[in-house]
């Protein structure tokens, strides 16, 4: 599809905006609609658009498969690790109030960290699934 001039120009224009919007949705999920899931999906859709227009080989050079697998596991680990950190500081599992100096600070910090973990996992898993489908050989 990279021979199509309109697709190439519009994709190159839109993809950085998609990444920026994904970052905005991720970190402003507290004050408006948004959060980890939506941000992860929008980020992965940006990379999927790049792979559709320019080919999956180039897209795999940007994000290799090994990095995706590590990122997916890291997201779940960050989420569960926040709970363990609360355990180590003396309170129940996933009780964010002990993570900061006051209850409000602790809750805010906890929510931001777990949304980050959720966003990372969702983005990597969507990309893993797309690359698994797109790279399967069809010729019999």
């Amino acid at each position, binding site marked *: 599809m990279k021979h199509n001039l309109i697709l190439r120009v519009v994709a190159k224009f839109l993809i950085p905006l998609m990444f920026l919007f994904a970052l905005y949705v991720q970190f402003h999920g507290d004050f408006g609609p948004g959060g980890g899931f939506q941000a992860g999906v929008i980020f992965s859709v940006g990379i999927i658009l790049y792979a559709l227009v320019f080919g999956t080989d180039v897209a795999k050079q940007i994000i290799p498969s090994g990095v995706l697998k590590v990122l997916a596991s890291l997201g779940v680990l960050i989420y569960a690790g926040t709970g363990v950190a609360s355990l180590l500081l003396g309170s129940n599992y996933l009780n964010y109030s002990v993570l900061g100096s006051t209850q409000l600070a602790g809750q805010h910090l906890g929510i931001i960290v777990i949304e980050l973990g959720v966003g990372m996992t969702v983005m990597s898993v969507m990309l893993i699934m797309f690359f698994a*489908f797109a790279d399967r050989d069809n010729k019999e």
Partner: protein
Amino acid sequence: MLEYIAGHFNYWMVIIIMMAGFYTVISRGNLVKKIAGLNIFQVSVFMLYISIGNVKGGAAPIIEKGVELYSNPLPHVLILTAIVVGVATTALGLALVVRIKEAYGSIEEDEIHDQDQSL
């Protein structure tokens, strides 16, 4: 009478869409169409829950100054989880369809069944 219909019209339309999705799953033989029907069923169940949580004249559940009436946030949370689980199930179902095609050579239910019977 008109108020009764206006109050329940939402639920009846949601049930009609739900039955349309259900019919697609049980009566069509093509596997990709079955998965599309299953997704229609799922989306109609989400609409049912969100309709239950809606409050007339309320706003979205984002706390702001000067707004008194909000919609119930609990169904939104449950449906958010359900949507993500639904896409995971759909992706897995589609991966299975691809493997079935490679093993049997077709994705029509009748042909797969005949091949299994003749083994």
